[in-house]
């Protein structure tokens, strides 16, 4: 990384960004000292636990969706690179369908197609809306992960295959020992990018009645019924999503730069 001049001259974060730090401190002071006097800030303070719970719901949905999507996506991606067309074809159809469908349509689809409770054995198990939304987001996530996976495998030079074959590895051994370990490193940046996009997609959950951050913000806005508060609370929602997704995107950029040379 000799060509990266900022890496060769390490500065701690506060010294590199004095302006941002001052701005942040000013904002904190304004919130702490300005808040109690204004009814708008008082209402925000009052509603902040509910907002936190709502955002927790968003994060839970996003984490579950990326987990399910990744497992499913790796499976479908593996099928998509299989030499047998009988497994390749369904995988390709899955990827094309779910990559090209609007997420909101998929969320409505899973919400209204699945029953609201499941009959397993003798007991009825509730099938809550937020789980349906999670599945609705996991479907496009799986298609995207599959495509990331297929791209990563394709990006490994064919000479690696040739070299491993000349060393008498079987196809399975080449995949497990040579190709996959190199793939995961290449997959990490786009995969994290996908996670950030899915987190932003969880905002759609409010449309089917999940009590997430947006839904809570709407309720708060209607209850308090102050124009200033409505503006402020949607700014807070924006800030919360940004505060969560921005570091992910920065880490992704860092990883992309780090892996660009190897």
């Amino acid at each position, binding site marked *: 990384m000799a060509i990266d001049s900022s890496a060769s001259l390490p500065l701690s974060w506060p010294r590199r960004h004095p302006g941002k730090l001052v701005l942040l401190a000013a904002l904190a002071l304004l919130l702490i000292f300005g808040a109690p006097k204004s009814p708008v800030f008082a209402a925000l303070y009052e509603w902040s636990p509910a907002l936190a719970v709502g955002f927790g719901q968003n994060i839970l949905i996003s984490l579950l969706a990326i987990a399910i999507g990744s497992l499913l996506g790796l499976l479908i991606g593996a099928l998509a690179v299989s030499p047998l067309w009988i497994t390749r074809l369904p995988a390709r159809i899955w990827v094309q369908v779910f990559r090209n469908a609007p997420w909101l349509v998929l969320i409505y689809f899973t919400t209204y197609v699945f029953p609201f409770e499941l009959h397993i054995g003798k007991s009825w198990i509730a099938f809550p809306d937020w789980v349906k939304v999670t599945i609705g987001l996991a479907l496009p996530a799986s298609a995207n992960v599959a495509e990331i996976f297929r791209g990563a495998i394709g990006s490994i030079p064919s000479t*690696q295959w040739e070299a491993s*074959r*000349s*060393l*008498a*590895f*079987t196809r399975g051994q080449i995949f497990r020992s040579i190709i996959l370990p*190199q793939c995961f490193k290449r997959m990490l940046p786009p995969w994290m990018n996908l996670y950030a996009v899915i987190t932003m997609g969880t905002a759609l959950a409010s449309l089917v009645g999940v009590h997430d951050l947006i839904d809570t913000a709407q309720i708060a806005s209607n209850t308090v019924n102050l124009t200033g508060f409505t503006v402020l609370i949607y700014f807070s929602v924006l800030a919360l999503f940004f505060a969560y997704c921005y570091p992910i995107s920065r880490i992704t950029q860092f990883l992309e730069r780090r892996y660009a*040379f*190897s």
Partner: protein
Amino acid sequence: MPSPETRAEQPLISLRDIHLSFGSNRVLRGIDLDVQRGQAVSIIGPSGSGKSTILRCITGLLQPQRGNIRVGETEVHKLKSEAQRIELRKRVGFVFQQYNLFPHLSVLENLVIAPRKVLGRNSAQAEQEARALLAKVRMEHKADAYPGQLSGGQQQRVAIARALAMRPELILFDEVTSALDPETVGEVLTVIRELTEEGMTCVLVTHEMRFAEDISDVVYFTENGLIVEHGSAEQIFQRPVSERTQAFLRHALGDAGRRPAAAGDPYLLSNISRYGLSV
């Protein structure tokens, strides 16, 4: 079990009338080639004459459309399944022009992975052998480095050690010095020379004419998918019969390749008519 005498007469590798084409491009058009055990055999010839393809046929990476290939007791052209070809590749080492080390593994792991996973050797033993092989190619000080941290010549020596770690009966070298700068070519050639002196059967595709002349027992000259001429190194390089071989060697050894001494002012475009100028 054949007696030692008859085995010595029977070549380790023999290719008979090998034909191979990629689509309509006929790369090999009837290759006959024999390699005795313990010999160093070089294949020389212009680019695109099918030299590398011959090596890939020997180890079963490519399957010719016609002809017989025998390596030891194995009839390569009759192998039907990948599993059978894998058995063949355990006995045949291959070193590539672009080294093709595994970039996610350290030098030592590059050497150990195939003996462990393919031959089922235990880790400690495989690692001990790998360190001995690294010492042999003078790379023991880089055992824990990653391929990306090594120079081309160092990577190529590791690649040779990786092929040796499988304890092959023979090694195929595919233009192993073509991607190296002139200074590091020597260190790789020294390693190959030592191998041939130890009696390892080597088949080299090379553009290093002096080296080929120096170490080879037999030299084959190929052009357009055919063997034009073959014989001892001395015979091919000193007394080539074919006119085509003579012309190739004349160019390859650089007698006619010298550029004429500078004449006149380089800034004066004296032969400007050679360039089609249109305004």
